[in-house]
């Protein structure tokens, strides 16, 4: 795991070297940035030294938790990342759960009604969901939210952001409710993209599993239908789904970033974009590293889920 992250850091470092000038060139002309600050960073990160040495300097500082300084936010990069990662994680977890909640029943239903209209309908909606770009769906939902009348008990649909302006005045439950309301649109956008692929795999896997002898044997023992379907068929069908979860994590993080930007959800993706626009290169590197780290963590989680579900899997 660590070597991979090192590889990513090396790759990003080298790529950013392609950028004309050095990481500070954008800031040098900026009157708001004091010269002393620029000079300090120059020496600390060794911009006058050869490239390999620069990398090693950066690496050693990173390992000590110092990810550099962000000129846009005027704070250490590590602080900025720390503040924003939580929001991205929340969005990723919420939308993953939502997509599973939607995809599994749909996939199972399609498998049980193979070839009939539910199967075709679900398959078609899967294609639609897969083909709808997440940012377009986000725009559509936000448009709908902006013209929708307030729903009693729910209030107006929030059209962006993490919390309402009055958040600080809320009690704990109200705060949770507020965040959930704001989470709805971005979470839904991401879930729709995920449901499509998940549902197809679920259907295929279920069809495969339902044909297995142990499902027949379970029926032969007189076990109730629900038990046969979920405990015997679905648990076995879930293995490819968990694998898919691991594979899809990369797409999930990318989709989350786009969705965050459009719905103004203050997460890692939004930070990355702003960093690129401001040419805040330390921040760019940190977001890339964080993104890769999240991906690794997601894969690890998927491996753990595999082992939990299937006693045949041995963790290395």
């Amino acid at each position, binding site marked *: 795991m660590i070597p991979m992250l090192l590889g990513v850091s090396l790759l990003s470092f080298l790529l950013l070297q392609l950028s004309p000038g050095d990481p500070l060139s954008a800031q040098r002309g900026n009157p708001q940035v004091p010269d002393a600050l620029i000079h300090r960073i120059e020496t600390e990160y060794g911009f006058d030294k050869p490239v390999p040495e620069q990398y090693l300097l950066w690496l050693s500082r990173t390992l000590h938790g110092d990810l550099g300084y962000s000129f846009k936010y005027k704070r250490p990069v590590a602080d900025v990342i720390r503040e924003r990662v939580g929001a991205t994680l929340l969005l990723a977890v919420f939308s993953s759960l939502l997509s599973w909640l939607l995809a599994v029943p749909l996939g199972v239903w399609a498998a049980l009604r193979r070839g009939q209209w539910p199967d075709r309908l679900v398959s078609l909606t899967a294609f639609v969901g897969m083909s709808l770009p997440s940012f377009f769906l986000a725009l559509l939902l936000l448009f709908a939210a902006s013209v929708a009348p307030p729903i009693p008990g729910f209030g107006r649909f929030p059209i962006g952001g993490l919390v309402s302006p009055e958040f600080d005045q809320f009690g704990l439950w109200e705060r949770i409710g507020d965040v959930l309301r704001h989470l709805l649109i971005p979470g839904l956008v991401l879930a729709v993209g995920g449901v499509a692929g998940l549902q197809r795999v679920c259907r295929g896997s279920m069809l495969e599993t339902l044909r*297995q*002898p*142990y499902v*027949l*044997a*379970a*029926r*032969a*023992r*007189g*076990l*109730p*239908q629900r*038990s046969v379907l979920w*405990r*015997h068929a679905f*648990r*076995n069908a879930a293995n490819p789904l968990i694998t898919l979860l691991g594979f899809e994590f990369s797409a999930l993080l990318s989709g989350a970033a786009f969705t965050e930007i459009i719905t103004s959800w203050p997460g890692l993706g939004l930070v990355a974009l702003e960093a690129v626009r401001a040419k805040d290169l330390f921040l760019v590197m940190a977001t890339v590293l964080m993104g890769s780290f999240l991906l690794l963590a997601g894969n690890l989680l998927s491996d753990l889920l595999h082992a939990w*579900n*299937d*006693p*045949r899997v041995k963790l290395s």
Partner: protein
Amino acid sequence: MSALLTVDRLGVSFATPDGPLHAVDGISFSLERGAVLGLVGESGCGKSATASALCGLLPPGARTAGSARLSGQELTSLSEPGWRSIRGRRISMVFQDPMSSLNPLLSVGEHLVETLRTHQDLSRAAARTAAVEWLRRVGIPDPEARLASCPHELSGGMRQRVMIALALCPGPDLLVADEPTTALDVTIQAQILDLLASLRRELGMAMIFITHDLGVVERVADRIAVMYAGRIAEEGPAEMILAAPRHPYTRGLLDSVPGFRPRTGRLPSIPGTVPSPRDWPSGCRFHPRCPDADSTCRESAPDAPGSDGGAACFHPVGSP
């Protein structure tokens, strides 16, 4: 009639793109309580379809004809909920391949506890104790520890023992064993057969033992029914069938198994091959391969064996 199971002209047909395929074509037999019927035949004769029909496990698109009555209850007209009350409780099945018949994700204990609690009102702890007892009964050493084992950790013989425990723990009246020893080593086969025989004595359930192996059926069966091409060729007490077969097919089968009869010289084999259900021959289906066949055999089908057994043949062995 005190028979446990009465099968009367049972037929099974499968839907195919080219029309219905009649895998089982009007078979009749009866089974007394506690008795063992050996259903013998080569692959393609319809014996597995018969087994599936008796447990309601035919694939969608299959149709049954005729009747099969278990203690007076008609099985062929049962709906799925009706079958769920019968399976396990009154009829149970043991399958050929124990590896694929056990859920790879669940432990032995979880399998047993689930089945026990489905059919009886037991607490988890009571079910666990009963599970250990069943494992002991089927001859699994160190049953307490084996509860936590998963199917892939067990040998073939052990898995089949677990399958048998699973099939028998709800206490069925009839056990349908579909080639239960075919996938096992020869030495293990004998153990499993002995196990089945002793369990039958202990629990008093009837058994239909399906196999292609005459040597196996010799050890377990009270009566034997020989199937060929979807019909029963011969039926009767086991000793009689094996010592003095009357149907030419049965005789051919026995002759081609080494060790059944003392002989010298080449091992005879039945000429020709088993016909596929798509082209069952006319009249007596065995006639293309029968040395004694004549025009009658080609034109009309012989009567099926009656309730006392007999051979479905116009010229049984030993008749003029």
